[in-house]
């Protein structure tokens, strides 16, 4: 009996770091495991059509805090210089030809394909969602998330997280009607340096875009101190100057 109690006690101790967290704390941990609070990154977005043909975009992005992210397209030439800014639920697009930032919404897509603006300009999940329920799953947990406001792209999100590192494995995104809009798959866990070990690939498909796929490849993620003024409309045309 003593042995059984000891085993149960040890199991509880091992599991304590995870079970001691409530859903929202786990969500904050997921956010920090995906990226530092203030950082820069290079990403490649690939839209793949059913026939296998591809379209690629390269973006440089900087993010600060829970809900500020600015990006600029480095290629292709047709998109070069376009920049996006997100502060909380507010999103803007700056097109050099147009010469001024215009407001865009989270469900639109500046690149086409399955990813929408909310996916491309992703802020911390804990900034947009409350965790309503946690369920155990094989090698991890399922977090049931509910959008904090109606300006968030997906009303409900189901997130599979695994391991002691609490990294996401799969995310299902639902509309308020309950319809599945898309599924994100996190793959290729990679050491980016500075203690950041996270999936380097996010793949998505959608029942609304049968046969189409979109992929984000993270090539470089570095912690970086950034002033708040970088995340303003006046700075949108100058985001590229932050690159070292």
């Amino acid at each position, binding site marked *: 009996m003593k042995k059984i109690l000891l085993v149960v006690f040890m199991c509880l101790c091992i599991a304590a770091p995870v079970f001691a967290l409530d859903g929202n704390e786990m969500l904050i941990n997921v956010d920090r495991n995906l990226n530092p609070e203030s950082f820069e990154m*290079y990403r*490649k977005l*690939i*839209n*793949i059509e059913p*026939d*296998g*043909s*591809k*379209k690629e975009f*390269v973006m*440089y992005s900087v993010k600060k805090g829970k809900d500020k992210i600015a990006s600029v397209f*480095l*290629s*292709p*030439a*047709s998109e*070069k*210089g376009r920049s996006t800014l997100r*502060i*909380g*639920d*507010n*999103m803007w697009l700056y*097109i*050099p*030809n*147009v*010469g*001024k930032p*215009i*407001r865009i*919404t989270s*469900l*639109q*897509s500046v690149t*086409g394909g399955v990813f929408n603006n909310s996916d491309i300009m992703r802020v911390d999940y804990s900034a947009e969602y409350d965790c309503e329920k946690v369920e155990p799953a094989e090698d991890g947990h399922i977090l049931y998330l509910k959008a904090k406001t*109606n*300006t*968030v792209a997906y009303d409900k999100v189901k997130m599979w997280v695994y391991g002691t590192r609490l990294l996401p494995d799969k995310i299902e995104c639902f*509309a308020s009607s309950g319809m599945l809009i898309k599924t994100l798959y996190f793959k*290729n866990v990679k050491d980016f340096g500075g203690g950041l070990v996270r999936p*380097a*690939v996010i793949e998505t498909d959608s029942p609304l875009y049968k*046969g*189409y796929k979109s*992929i984000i*490849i993270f*090539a*470089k993620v570095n912690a970086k101190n950034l*002033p*708040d*003024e970088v*995340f*303003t*409309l*006046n*700075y949108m045309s*100058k985001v590229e*100057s932050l690159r070292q």
Partner: protein
Amino acid sequence: MKFFHLCTGLLLFLMAAALPCHADAEDQASDMLDLDFEIPEVEKKPYTFRAELEIAETVKSLDESSLLFYQKYPDGRDDTTLWETDLNLTLEGSYRIESVNFYARLKGGLYHTEEEDWQTDDLTEEAYVSLQPNPSIALDAGKKVLKWGKGYAWNPVAFFSRPKDLDDPEASMEGYFLASGDLIKSMDGPLKTIAVTPVILPVSSDINDDWSAERELVYGAKIYFFTWDTDLDVMFLIGEETRDRIGFDFSKNISSNFEIHGEAAIVFDYEKQVVDRQGELSADRYNALNFLAGIRYLTEGDTTIIFEYYRNGQGYTRGEINDYFDLIKTGYLDYLDSGNMAGLGLSREQGALYYNQQTMMMDYLYLKVTHKEPFDILYFTPGITSVYNMNDHSLSITPQVTYTPITNIEFDIKATFVSGRGHTEYGEKINGSKIVASTAFYF
């Protein structure tokens, strides 16, 4: 020569039709997916360069019964179809030395019409130097486009810009010679950002000479506030010859697919030049209020709707436009009777200066509906745009198709049709319809 234009149009069509096939053939042979983590763009260079080459063929069908046709072609024309070929090259580049950045955008054009044969055109749209010691402060000097306002089709608060082209509101524009700055402060709390943009614009016979005939210094500023998830701007312009003006604008996302915006401006002591049916010119002075209200809405089916109402307080009333059209009609009849061009010449002069402009009247509605990738055709966007003149109930309708099947190549075809009774803005347009097919290459 018409054969040449037909060939150009046919070539553009064949390119649009053939390239997707080529893409399929090429891509089917490639591997399904190569997760290449090497991104050459990561390496930063001190310079940037971008170029755009556009080939366009335009076919205009002249409306022989419109007053503006009589005004331009009082002797009529044998052929009422006009063809135009345009070849435009835009070069854009920048060079950065620490906190100093040099930027220029140059446009060169080669175009052909049956009336003018081959002509060239070149323009420096922008060329300026920027100094940015830190992200809170920036100073720009040179020829620069300053676009203020939140409207898509019109911007009554864009005090330092040229008017937008209603046929293509997103087209690049030519700037003015000016000096401007940015002072940005971000904060915690309800007011998250405040940014001040002061502007000084000199006017002389050498630079910015379309502002006024006299030498003057025009200055102004815009103050931007980001608060309660809303963009707010207040702005002013003060000049010696140029009329003073104040304005504000706002925009806000109401939900994940719905945005609202608005602008308002007052031009103080605005002087409207009005011509009566005898050709007498008079000036009407008043404080002109211009404003705009609009929405951008994305439906669940990926249809984007942009809808705007514009009040042009500087525009002409129905009666004033009637007088102008009467002047053309009288001048044309005089010419037919006696060969006297005086009346028509006067109407041409007033038309070029004041009347024959886009948005010449007071109340307009703008609607643009685009549907992203219907029938699962990726990168294919059909749309339709309409401008409705509420004062005379005339309108233009422009269906358009944009297709970008291959990276850095864009095909676009649009047709514009106008409708309206006699003595209405669109009813008297010289072009009854216009079709433009273009291909743009980016590199």
